[in-house]
């Protein structure tokens, strides 16, 4: 019995943290966040050197064949420094989609390139969670039509994996004809999302498994977003504690006031169990199928709630400075805000858990 990270996983966490501390300081993030394409070549290079793009690519296709728990550890560290690099879709969801539902040709064509950094695939499955603005993609006669919103890891993608309204996945190359791509700008300028418009667009379907792989992608995506929220929340708590240990008012460190201390304690008390929940949810995705979806949902909704509180409270502990751009605290605040909404906000995700447990029928 060992609930926690293995030695190897602790080494992975420390190696990623060290590397990102060097390559991804806040000033660098600021520069990237000003651009339409926020992705940092410098950080991406470091991520590539660590082998991160190939983590979830099977070994026979040139990857490392690691687990979602490993990926969650990396996600936490990326969020801790608000790294402006693609990860969730291109290094987690796309490899899972192709490994689990790709044809042999698709695997051979894409997986090695994902692992060595030559290709990046963005993923659009939001409409399988909830359709907004009438979005949705239909698949008829071998062609896709319609709109997919919130395509993740959008900028510079070489291809897109898109779910249609039945939940089946399709691969569309970036150079496909009759494909329109539109950048969406969110609060979180460290990540990139977009809109895909199809009009009888050529697409290669993945295996038709009644949406099973799409459901796996939702689970994995939610666990990784929860891990991201965890890392960003950890950073915000540490910043609040550091700041309150330096700032003096009324002749005292503000951290010695119970009003401030209790804000920090409440953040820590709500945040700490999230770590174990995210670990378990990731492990369930890897090894405990009956718990995988329920815990992915719980991890997603719970971190969404807890870290909204953390983001707000940490900002308040920083007083007026927290509200300014000078400290850059808002980058973490916004990252947490994005994590909460993406692939279903807490209420949406909780409603799914009720169905998964048979409390109510699917709507």
């Amino acid at each position, binding site marked *: *019995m*060992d*609930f*926690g*990270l*293995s030695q190897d996983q602790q080494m992975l966490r420390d190696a990623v943290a060290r590397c990102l501390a060097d390559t991804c300081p806040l000033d660098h993030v600021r520069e990237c966040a000003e651009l339409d394409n926020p992705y940092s070549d410098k950080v991406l290079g470091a991520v590539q050197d660590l082998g991160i793009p190939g983590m979830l690519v099977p070994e026979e296709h040139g990857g490392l064949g690691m687990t979602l*728990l490993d990926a969650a550890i990396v996600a936490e560290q990326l969020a801790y420094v608000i790294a402006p690099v693609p990860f969730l879709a291109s290094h987690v969801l796309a490899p899972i989609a192709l490994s689990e539902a790709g044809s042999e040709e698709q695997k051979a064509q894409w997986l090695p390139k994902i692992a060595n950094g030559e290709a990046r695939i963005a993923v659009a499955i939001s409409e399988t969670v909830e359709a907004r603005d009438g979005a949705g993609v239909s698949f008829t006669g071998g062609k896709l039509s319609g709109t997919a919103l919130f395509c993740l890891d959008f900028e510079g993608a070489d291809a897109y994996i898109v779910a249609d309204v039945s939940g089946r996945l399709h691969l569309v190359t970036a150079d496909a004809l009759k494909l329109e791509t539109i950048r969406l700008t969110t609060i979180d300028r460290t990540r990139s999302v977009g809109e895909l418009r199809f009009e009888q667009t050529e697409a290669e379907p993945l295996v038709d498994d009644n949406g099973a792989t799409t459901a796996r992608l939702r689970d994995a995506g939610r666990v990784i977003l929860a891990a991201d929220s965890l890392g960003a929340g950890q950073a915000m*708590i540490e910043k609040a*504690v550091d700041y*309150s*240990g330096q700032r003096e008012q009324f002749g*005292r*460190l503000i*951290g*010695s*006031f*119970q009003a401030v*201390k*209790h804000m*920090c*304690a*409440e953040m*820590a*008390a*709500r945040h*700490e*169990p*999230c*770590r*174990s*929940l995210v*670990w*378990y949810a990731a*492990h369930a995705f890897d*090894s*405990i199928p009956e718990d995988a979806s329920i*815990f992915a949902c*719980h991890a997603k*909704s*719970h971190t969404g*709630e807890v870290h909204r509180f953390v983001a707000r409270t940490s900002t308040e502990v920083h007083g007026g400075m927290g509200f300014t751009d000078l400290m850059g605290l808002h980058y973490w605040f916004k990252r947490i805000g994005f994590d909460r909404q993406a692939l279903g906000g*807490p*209420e949406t995700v*909780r*409603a799914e*858990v*009720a169905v998964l447990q048979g*409390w*109510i029928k699917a709507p």
Partner: protein
Amino acid sequence: MDLNYGPEYDAFRQQVRAFIEAHRHLAPPSAARAARPSSEAVQWQKLLIENGYTARTIPAEYGGYGAEPDILKSRIISEEFSQAGVPGGLANQGISMLVPTLLELGTREQKQRWIEPTLKGEIVWCQGYSEPGAGSDLASLKTSARVEDGYFVINGQKIWTSTAKQADMIFCLVRTEPDAPKHRGISYLIFSMDTPGIEVRPLKTMTGHAEFNETFFTDVRVPVDQIVGARGQGWLVANATLGHERGMLGDPGALENRLQALIALMQEERIGQARAIDNPVLRDRLLALQAEVSAMKCNGMRILSNRLKGESGGMAKLIVKLQSCEIAHQISALAIDAMGEMGTLYHGSPREREAGAWQWNYMFQLGLIIGGGTAQIQKNIIAERGLGMPREPKLAKTSDAAKATADTARHKQGSA
């Protein structure tokens, strides 16, 4: 991440299950936790000790089972009894607090005299720690014990002495060295509740029941050898047991049981034709609590794993009391809301649900949030020990604080 206990432990689990199946007809109704155990409960306790399912690691010479400590086996036992809905061993204050203290700091004679009858349920204890003027600041307690002809002569008052009415004995903190700094002037005494000069008055709480008492001491004479640890060392002795109490109030298995009861309630309770769980707002709150409880269960596994590796629980452990009590309270609150007007029924009213247990819990759990280290004290501990934040500077004397308050009052009046 390896959640398997391994073949040795799987076999042990089967053995526990088989025992429960074969003997559950002998188990007393959950009244095993009543202050004074029934004869059925005493028999059950005896059977559990003989089989190593309670008092497991307490040496056989003191009436325990005498097994080597094994965290996983203890965990398996509590999991299996809880899952089967069969009461485990007695868990009163004598067993959970006094016995560990004696094992660690008692003399050989004290261990021989007190542990075995306590384990068997023959001797019931109460705890004399808090006083009307010493709650969160327990070390400021004033109940005095002066030495006179080989006796401590005790005068003062304790509060929150649950089970004092039924108890045979008390373990009690008293001030023996009035001139020493407050933490070093306290001693830990054990004495009979039949000693002349003790008066117990029930303390009725907001629940309408007297779950606690006030206990008054007037020239209570206790032989000087009825002390655990040395004179003036009582604070250290008591702290060995406060840890046990905080652990007791934060069991994730207990939270899970409350949550399951709430889920069952919400599936049964009807609003018109629909079940309470069909109401999307109530259901959403239930699911949010389920996520919270899931997080605490995972947190509990992490703490267990740390203990197995001999590591401290760290932050994961520090937050348990605060979070568990809060979540338990929210579970009761939702149960009341799910019952609507029916949720107000109490005092044995017609149509009352589950003997008013949810309302009782909702009120009593507020007591648990306050007791055993208030939520605010817990937050100080988390901030100072967990996050390393600076301590509150202390005002030198109460009179300074009074002066500061008076100044503030004047200032307010002046500005009005």
